[in-house]
């Protein structure tokens, strides 16, 4: 249960700041995510924050997620971007 709680919290955090789809934050949507998307989101956050990009929810990453911060998304426009030809 604690592990699930931490993962869930991190998932909400990553969605709040633009690393995962905002639908993750909607409690009424039973969100299922494949492992690669999850790891990619963590790695992107770690990379942006200057941490080692392990793709794992390690202690350093959790500590950074607990810091006070600005509420504006780090990645603006999740899901709205178009791939460049």
């Amino acid at each position, binding site marked *: 249960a604690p592990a699930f709680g931490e993962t869930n919290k991190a998932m909400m955090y990553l969605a709040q700041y633009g690393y995962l789809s905002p639908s993750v934050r909607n409690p009424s949507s039973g969100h299922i995510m494949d492992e690669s998307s999850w790891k990619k989101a963590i790695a992107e956050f770690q990379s942006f924050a*200057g941490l080692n990009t392990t793709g794992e929810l390690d202690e350093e990453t959790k500590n950074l997620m607990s810091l006070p911060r*600005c509420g*504006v998304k780090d990645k603006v426009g999740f899901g709205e971007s178009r791939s460049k030809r």
Partner: protein
Amino acid sequence: YALQGSRWRVKNLTYKISKYPSRLNRDEVDTELAKAFSVWSDYTDLTFTQKRSGQVHIEIRFEKGEHGDGDPFDGPGGTLAHAYFPVYGGDAHFDDAEMWSINSLRGTNLFQVAAHEFGHSLGLSHSDVRTALMAPFYRGYNKAFQLDQDDIQGIQALYGHKTQLDVGGSFPSPSAPRITTPQPSAEDPALCADPNIDTIFNSADGATFVFKGEHYWRLTENGVAAGYPRLISRSWPGLTGNIDAAFTYKNGKTYFFKGSKYWRYNGQKMDGQYPKEISEGFTGIPDNLDAALVWSGNGKIYFYKGSKFWRFDPAQRPPVKSTYPKPLSNWEGIPDNIDAALQYTNGYTYFFKGGSYWRFNDRTFSVDTDNPAFPRSTGYWWLGCSSAPKGTVGGNAKYIHHDHDDDDEVGDITF
């Protein structure tokens, strides 16, 4: 830095504090928020005027929990504030459940958070440079707050460089240090007698240093700081004198070059085992450099030697494109065989040679036109030498005029 994609079309912006925090004095809040705006107006021609009523560009509110925009605050800690980009109106909201503080180590510093939020209001997104104000994480109260180069470049990319003084007339726009009357007390007679320099660079915390022979000086707005010169080897243990070139990169580390070697420092502490060979750490860059800088136009590293220059991009493989070196004459108005080069804290690029210097305009891509014209005396304008000439001085600048076609010859940006 990262730009969101929108900006204000006007430079004279108004703001209103519609809802004050519950635990701070209103006058103090007014002062702190004005200070926070001035962080950005110090480096651009933006102005910010507070209004008490009526329509404004940026509305500021201190709110708790859900406050009508669908993005509720979460109580103490966590999210401190949020702001909207210009395209969404520029408003800034602060979580009133935070313990906002002024000039104190306790609580959350209002000035710093506000300066960050106003960066969003002006069009800046979060930066991945840790030391930048626009990094997303609150870093604690810093009494000696200074805007990071990354932030300066970001805001100037949106609104251009500052051209006017806040009060009174114009200063030699956009000049190097804001020196109008060099103070005699800030002179170094030996340096003024021979103002040739080996290298000049900014440290990560924004201080500017001049290296010459075995000694160095810290520059102030009036010339050189008291207590200098000092020995390079004493302040940067492991580093030798007669340095060829130096720059501080956006990772906050300072690199020094001499002959075939280079050193990396974190502040004044060597950052690993140095010296190393330039050919290993900076593949494609020659030995015995004249100068180096991080150019404000694109954030890439430029190396200069003789009549040529090289562009180095650590993120690319290879870091130096096969089209380099290119002729230094592409930097219109800058002479060959320069002594030193610097991207100063005002965002402009300066080249030094034989006691003279040139200010480069990244927009026109040529030496800036100003009165007095460049080259000017390094002694008067940078080192505080009161007896040095204030006007244009001799220099062997080569003014080569050529039209830029669509393939710029300096970097992959469009002029």
